[in-house]
């Protein structure tokens, strides 16, 4: 500093020069960093493949690096660069990359319209239908040797199949499921037993004991919460919707497809079979209120990080979240010195309230693979990128990725770690449930009003009365249409649009058949014809609406 003053006094430097020097220094430093990054990414003698994702959960990046290292050992001429991007900016980042033609060779699929919407997917990503029917060479020597790549996934690679495009546009790398995380040490301290509750009644009882312990034990001061949720009340209440409402299927499922669609649910609600005053709906919401009473006041404000923080610090007995949070949660628990057990959210048991409404647990047989990666259409190294994707989803590669990241694998024969066993999809249970969120308008009302009820801000009657009004009340004296009608129209509107979009696939295939017959897939063409035919341009939906409302489907 003294030297600087000396120089100033001597007139060799003035104040404005400091700024210039700093600016030049910053520019040079940035330039150096950019050059270093480019040199790191663009290896002078190796082919560089870039893979981007938003999975910043504990362990995932290390797991990906481990798989990359293993792959690079087999292919010394290839360098794989992992590009993790926080999910908060993934949408903007990937959009920019895709539009500017600089997207990574492999991109995790999701979070962006340019990835999710068909018209963009086909522009930016490579259809993989021709590839997924070939064997994965990295499964040589395993039980899956020679099997089609798509058949080596637990979900038959349906997680990567786009019905509307009739092709595979991504390859899933993991599976996901939601569970109840239990702090068994805390439960034992409070109840004297480390037994995880087996019924809803037991769960409520344990929660009440935890709350009492929390407020009555000196030094805790109410800090310990019975239940926290990473995703608000839906993470706690959704697992109960199928158990409570699956029995309605026999009365509501008009098309006998084993599900209660929007229009079927709407019919059920307005005819009273599943209306707000029906015993099963009243029972469901009362049970959910009892459960949510075990969460902290104003629980809807708690986000994922806060919930994890509370649970990992031993300040919650139960947490609602998914398999993707397991690794971080286990790490937190280990550092705090408590044990975790995983379980399904328990159902009302025999002799307990609400037991008579319960069909059984919801099953997970239809769950699809997650963490899907797509191949960028403008990639300069498509074959190499695809090869890495094959390795990532080989028995060995997928086991390594999921074992190290603490996630459940998706490839058959890839062994889940012991901690992941409880997350594997359970095929036992029921599937159909009443859809109370009839369309997005009623859905918004349901979401807001149910949270207000579950947080104790309004009564069940008040909540359901607002919901009913939203669903069935005419919009005005001169307009008989309700938001429920709007939802049916919206479904119809989507149906004819689906048919129209399928016509684009057919048009493409017809042109290919006539102009380039060797590239034509008759199976794909006929599948699309069938799916389009069965939607009947939405006319069946118009018919069903008229059948139970006694009025033609209105337009909006």
């Amino acid at each position, binding site marked *: 500093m003294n030297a600087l003053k000396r120089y100033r006094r001597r007139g060799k430097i003035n104040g404005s020069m400091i700024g210039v020097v700093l600016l030049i220094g910053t520019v040079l430093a940035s330039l150096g960093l950019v050059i270093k990054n480019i040199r790191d990414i663009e290896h002078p003698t190796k082919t560089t493949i870039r893979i981007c994702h938003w999975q910043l959960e504990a362990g995932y990046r290390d797991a990906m690096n481990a798989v990359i290292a293993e792959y690079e050992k087999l292919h010394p001429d290839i360098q794989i660069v992992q590009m993790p991007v926080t999910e908060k900016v993934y949408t903007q980042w990937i959009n920019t990359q895709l539009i500017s033609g600089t997207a990574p060779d492999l991109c995790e699929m999701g979070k962006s319209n340019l990835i999710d919407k068909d018209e963009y997917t086909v522009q930016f990503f490579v259809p993989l239908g021709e590839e997924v029917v070939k064997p994965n060479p990295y499964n040589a020597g395993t039980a899956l040797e020679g099997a089609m790549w798509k058949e080596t996934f637990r979900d038959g690679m349906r997680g990567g199949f786009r019905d509307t495009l009739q092709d595979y546009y991504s390859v899933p790398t993991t599976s996901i499921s939601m569970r109840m995380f239990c702090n068994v040490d805390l439960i034992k301290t409070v109840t004297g037993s480390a037994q995880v509750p087996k019924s809803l009644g037991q769960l409520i009882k344990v929660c009440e004991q935890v709350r009492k312990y929390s407020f009555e034990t000196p030094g805790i001061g109410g800090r310990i919460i019975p239940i926290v949720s990473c995703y608000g009340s839906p993470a706690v209440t959704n697992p109960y919707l199928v158990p409570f409402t699956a029995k309605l299927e026999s009365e509501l499922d008009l098309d006998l497809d084993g599900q209660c669609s929007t229009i079927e649910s709407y019919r059920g609600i307005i005819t009273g079979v599943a209306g707000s005053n029906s015993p099963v709906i009243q029972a469901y919401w009362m049970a959910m209120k009892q459960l949510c009473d075990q969460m902290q006041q104003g629980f809807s404000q708690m986000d994922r990080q806060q919930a994890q923080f509370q649970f990992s610090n031993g300040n919650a007995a139960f947490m609602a979240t998914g398999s993707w949070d397991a690794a971080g949660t286990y790490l937190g628990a280990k550092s705090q010195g408590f044990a975790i057990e995983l379980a399904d959210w328990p159902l009302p048991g025999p002799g307990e309230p609400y037991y008579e409404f319960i069909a059984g647990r919801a099953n997970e047989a239809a769950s699809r693979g997650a963490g899907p990666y797509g191949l960028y259409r403008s990639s300069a190294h498509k074959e190499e990128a695809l090869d890495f994707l094959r390795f990532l989803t080989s028995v060995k590669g997928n086991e390594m990725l999921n074992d190290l990241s603490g996630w459940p694998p998706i490839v058959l024969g890839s062994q889940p770690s012991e901690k992941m066993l409880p997350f594997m999809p359970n095929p036992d249970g029921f599937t159909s449930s009443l859809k109370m969120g009839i369309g997005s308008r009623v859905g918004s009302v349901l979401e807001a009003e149910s949270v207000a009820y579950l947080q104790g801000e309004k009564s069940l009657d008040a909540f359901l009365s607002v919901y009913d009004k939203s669903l069935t009340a005419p919009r005005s004296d001169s307009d008989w249409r309700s938001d429920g009608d709007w939802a049916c129209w919206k479904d119809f509107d989507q149906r004819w649009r689906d048919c129209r979009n399928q016509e684009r696939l057919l048009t493409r295939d017809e042109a290919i058949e006539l102009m380039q017959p060797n590239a034509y897939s008759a199976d794909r063409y006929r599948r699309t014809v*069938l799916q389009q035919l069965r939607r009947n341009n939405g006319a069946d939906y118009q*018919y069903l609406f008229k059948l139970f409302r006694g009025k033609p489907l209105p337009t909006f």
Partner: protein
Amino acid sequence: MILRIGINSLLLLILSTGALFPSFGHAQTMEDARDELAAFNWDAAYKHFAALAKTAKPQSETWAQATFGAAAAVSNRQPASQDFADQAAKLYQSIVDTTPQSKFTARSLMKLARLKELRDYPGDKPDLDGAVELYLKVAATWPDESIASEATLRAAAARVQAYDAPDFANVSAGISLLEKWVAEHPKDPYLSIMYQYLGDTYFLPLSTSARIAGDTEKMKQYYAKSLACYDKVNSIGWTDAGNQGPILWRCAVMSEAIGNTPSAIKYYTLIINQTPTSGKAYESQLALRRLGAPAPEIDLIHKSSVQPATRPAGQEVSR
């Protein structure tokens, strides 16, 4: 210095010419146009095909191909509009009118029918009768080619879409058309699809309207007919193999409703064995136990190795 300025100006001129006329120096080829179409780049495909059609010898096969491509592309440009639909119809019609022997003619007539049947944009009104007329014309003009079966299927579906309760005259006409066709063409490549569509139609609207009206006997009659069609599909092979779970469930429930226990057992078992990831395998196990039949274990290893319906050897798919 002057030389350098001159060279730079020349380069700038060349570059700006290229920017103004992107096709300059780059001849449009049918392959380029086709690639754009295959990538759903409708605007670019249309420009390419339209340019090729202009330079092709009128009414030649190259002209027909380029015109067909231009029509296919313009009909799918977005946002969809009456104008685009009209342009497409005009182009398809020009192929039908001027090149009756072209391999693009039958498909062009078919596309004219599709334009009439489909809604292209909100507020567009389908012309089902007009579509049926053209579909039947395709089937009558090229009766020995496989496009005839697709056209017949489409004609029947356009009839069914009338959903003309309470007498369902159009629905019945659609059913009759398909039933006559499958009886006369037992090896049709669309046989599985036709039977599946027949099964669907006997179910909805026919059995559903009877159910809602409380006419249980009539409902059961339609269930039986629907089931018979699905039985055929099951023996031929499911076109959308792997996704037949909901139909199998429908078959099982309909079988129970009409008192056909062996059929119910067959379909519940198929759900567990063929589509264990459909979500209904567990309930199928419960149903089998209720019916006193053995219930297979649920094996979540996806069994989509069930092959889709295959085209009989030697038959073209369409033209």
